[in-house]
C-alpha cells in the first residue's frame, strides 16, 4: 500500500515536471570579476522567474573569441547570449551572427552613455542595434594628486603638454618616483596606451576605410610619446598591466596614462595599496582634440541561432537595467553603462572617481570599426615599439606601419 502511494506520488511528480518545463538560457560569459558580477544578475533573474534556468559559462579571455566564432559561424546555437569585446562587434554584427534587437521589439532608452551604445550598432554609429552595452570599460588616466599639489602642477592636467611638464618636474625632484608609467609591450598594450595620445593630437589610424596614420599630427603624437618616455622607468618597453599596476600601488609612479575600471578600486584598498586616497582618476587629457580615451566596452548580444530569443532579450533588458546595474556596481565593482547609475549618489559615495569615469566614457573613442582590427593592432604595436626603442624614427615607423595597414585593409 505504502509502495503504491509512493509510486503514485512519483508519477504525479513526473507529470508535474513535464507540465512545467523550465526554459533554459546558456550565456557565454567571462571569468573573474566580470563573471562574478554577471552571476549576481543571473541569480536575481532566476529568483524572480522561477521557471527559467540560466547556465552561465565563465570562460577565460584567451580563447573566448575562437569559441564564440566557431559556434556563431556554424550557427550551432550552443549559446543564447554571448558576451563580446567591442572590437569583435563589427565582425559579429556584419556577418549576421547576432540577432537584431529592434526586430525583437526592443528600443533602447536614452539613459545609456551614447558612446557605449553606438558600438552596439552596425553600421557604426547609428545602424541596427545588435547588442547592449554591459560593462562600461574605458581607459582612465591616473595621477598622484599629493605630488601634483606639492609642486603646484595643474590638477587635473588638461592637456598632454601639462602631463609632460608634470612628469619632468616630479622626475627631477622626487627620487625613486617615476614621472610616468605606461605599457610599452609590443602589440595590444602599447597601442592601447598610445591611442589617447594619437587621438588627442588630432590624428587617427583609419578614416572612412582609408589609412590616415601617415600624417604630421600622428608623427607629432609619436614624438610626444618618445619625450614622455624619458621620464618612464628603464625597461618600460616590456611593461604590461601588472607592472603599471604594481608601480602605482607601491607609490613608485606619479602618472599612469592608462588604468582600467576593473582594478582602479585596488588603489584605495589599504591591503594592496600604499597610496590610499592619493591617486586621482581623470579622463585622458586632450591637446588639439578634446580628451579622447579609448573605449573598451563589453557587450551582450543574442546569438542568431538561439531558440529562445524572447527570453534572452528579457534577460538582456534585466541585466542592463538601472536597478540591476546599480546592484552589480555596489556589490561587485561592475563598470556601469548608464548615466543614472554612474551619477547615483550612493554609487558615487562608494566609488569617488565615477564622475571622471562618466566623463571619460562620454568622451570615449572606439577603436576603428573595421573587420581587421586585430591585424592592424598587431602591425601598429610592432612599429610603435620599434620607435620606442629607437630603432626607427617616428616618421619612418608610422610610414611603414601605414603601408602595411593599407595592405591589410586592401585584402
Amino acid at each position: 500500500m505504502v509502495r503504491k502511494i509512493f509510486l503514485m506520488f512519483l508519477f504525479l511528480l513526473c507529470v508535474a515536471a513535464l507540465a512545467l518545463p523550465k526554459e533554459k538560457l546558456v550565456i557565454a560569459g567571462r571569468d573573474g570579476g566580470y563573471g562574478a558580477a554577471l552571476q549576481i544578475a543571473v541569480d536575481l533573474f532566476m529568483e524572480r522567474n522561477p521557471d527559467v534556468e540560466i547556465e552561465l559559462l565563465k570562460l577565460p579571455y584567451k580563447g573566448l573569441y575562437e569559441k564564440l566564432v566557431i559556434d556563431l559561424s556554424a550557427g550551432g546555437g550552443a549559446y543564447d547570449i554571448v558576451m563580446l569585446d567591442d572590437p569583435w562587434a563589427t565582425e559579429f554584427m556584419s556577418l549576421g551572427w547576432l540577432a537584431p534587437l529592434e526586430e525583437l521589439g526592443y528600443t533602447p532608452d536614452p539613459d545609456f552613455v551614447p558612446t557605449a551604445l553606438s558600438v552596439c550598432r552596425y553600421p557604426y554609429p547609428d545602424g541596427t542595434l545588435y547588442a547592449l552595452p554591459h560593462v562600461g570599460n574605458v581607459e582612465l588616466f591616473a595621477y598622484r594628486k599629493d605630488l601634483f599639489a606639492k609642486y603646484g602642477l595643474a590638477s587635473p592636467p588638461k592637456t598632454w603638454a601639462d602631463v609632460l611638464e608634470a612628469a619632468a618636474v616630479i622626475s627631477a625632484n622626487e627620487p625613486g618616483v617615476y614621472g610616468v608609467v605606461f605599457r610599452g609591450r609590443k602589440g595590444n598594450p602599447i597601442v592601447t596606451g598610445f591611442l589617447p595620445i594619437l587621438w588627442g593630437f588630432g590624428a587617427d589610424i583609419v578614416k572612412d576605410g582609408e589609412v590616415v596614420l601617415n600624417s604630421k599630427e600622428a608623427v607629432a603624437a609619436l614624438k610626444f610619446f618618445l619625450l614622455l618616455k624619458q621620464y618612464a622607468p628603464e625597461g618600460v618597453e616590456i611593461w604590461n598591466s601588472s607592472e603599471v599596476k604594481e608601480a602605482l600601488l607601491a607609490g613608485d609612479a606619479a602618472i599612469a596614462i592608462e588604468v582600467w575600471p576593473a582594478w582602479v578600486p585596488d588603489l584605495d584598498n589599504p591591503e594592496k595599496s600604499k597610496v590610499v586616497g592619493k591617486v586621482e582618476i581623470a579622463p585622458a587629457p586632450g591637446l588639439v582634440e578634446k580628451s579622447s580615451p579609448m573605449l573598451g566596452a563589453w557587450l551582450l548580444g543574442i546569438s542568431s541561432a538561439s531558440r529562445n530569443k524572447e527570453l534572452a532579450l528579457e534577460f538582456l533588458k534585466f541585466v542592463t537595467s538601472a536597478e540591476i546595474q546599480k546592484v552589480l556596481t555596489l556589490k561587485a565593482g561592475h563598470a556601469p553603462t548608464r548615466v543614472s547609475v554612474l551619477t547615483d549618489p550612493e554609487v558615487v559615495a562608494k566609488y569617488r572617481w565615477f564622475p571622471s569615469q562618466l566623463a571619460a566614457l562620454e568622451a570615449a573613442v572606439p577603436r576603428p570599426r573595421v573587420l581587421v582590427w586585430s591585424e592592424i593592432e598587431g602591425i601598429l604595436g610592432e612599429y610603435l615599439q620599434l620607435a620606442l626603442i629607437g630603432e626607427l624614427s617616428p616618421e619612418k615607423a608610422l610610414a611603414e606601419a601605414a603601408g602595411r595597414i593599407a595592405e591589410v585593409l586592401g585584402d
Partner: protein
Amino acid sequence: MNIWRATRLAKRALFWAVLLSVMVFVLFPIYWMLTTSFKEPLEYATRTPSWFPHRITFQHYREIWKEGAYRYFINTVLVSLGSTLLSLGIAFPAAYGLARFRFPAKLDLIFLLWVLLVRMAPPVVLAIPLYTTLQGLGLLNKLTGLVIAYQVYTLPYSIWMLLRFVRDVPIEVEEAAAIDGASRLRTLVAIVLPLVGPGLVATAIFAVIMTWNEFIYALLFLRRPEVFTLPIHISHFITEYEVLWGPLMAIGITSSLPILILSGYVQKHLLRGFAISFK
C-alpha cells in the same frame, strides 16, 4: 700517433660541448618553470631575475589545488587514455588487415595515403565540420566527443606505426598457427598481438603525449568549465590584465610531470620496438 690522439680528444670535447649546449637549451625552460613556481609573487616581478627563490613558497601549488586543478587533471587523463585506447582498438585490426590481405585496385595504398592526408592537414581545417557533426550527435561539450575528435590526431598515426610492426611479424609464424588449426581471430589474439606488444606500447605512449597537450579542439568543443582539460585550464592564468606567473608555472610543472615520466619509458620501449626480432 699524437695527432690521432689530439683529434680524438678534440672530437670528444666537441661532442660534450654540443651535448651540453643542447641540454641547456632543453632543460633551462624546465628549470625556470620549477624555480618560478616556488618564488613569491614579488620576487618574480622584480626587474633583476633571481636564479633561486629567496624564500621557497608553496602558495602557488596550494592555489592551483584549491582552484580544483585535479578535476582538469582527471579530465585530461580520461580523454588521453580514452582516445589512445580507441585508436589502438581500431588501428590494430586495420593495420593487420592492410598488411595481410590483398585489396583490388590498390585500395589499401589509397586508403593509407588518405589517412596520411588527414593527419597532415592542419587540425583547424577539420574543426568546423567536426563541430557540427559532434553537435548533431549531441557529443559537443562532452569528453566522449573529444575522444572521438582526437582520432584525427591519433588514428592515422597509430595505423601507420602499427602497420610497420605487423609487417615485421614473419608470416611463417601465422602459417604454423593455421596448420595447427587456429582460426584467424585466434591467431591474431594469441600470436600476432603478443609479438607486436612493444609496438603497441610505443604507439600508445606517443598517442597519449599527442592528446595530453592538445589545445585547439579542447578549446572549441568544450564549453563547460567542469569538462575542461588541463591545457584549457592553464590558459586562464593569462588574463587580459596580467599573467599570473606563479600559478602558471606551478600548473605547468604539475601537468608536464606525467609526460616527463612517460617519456622515460618511451626511450626504453622505442628501442625495444625498433629492435623487434623473432626467433
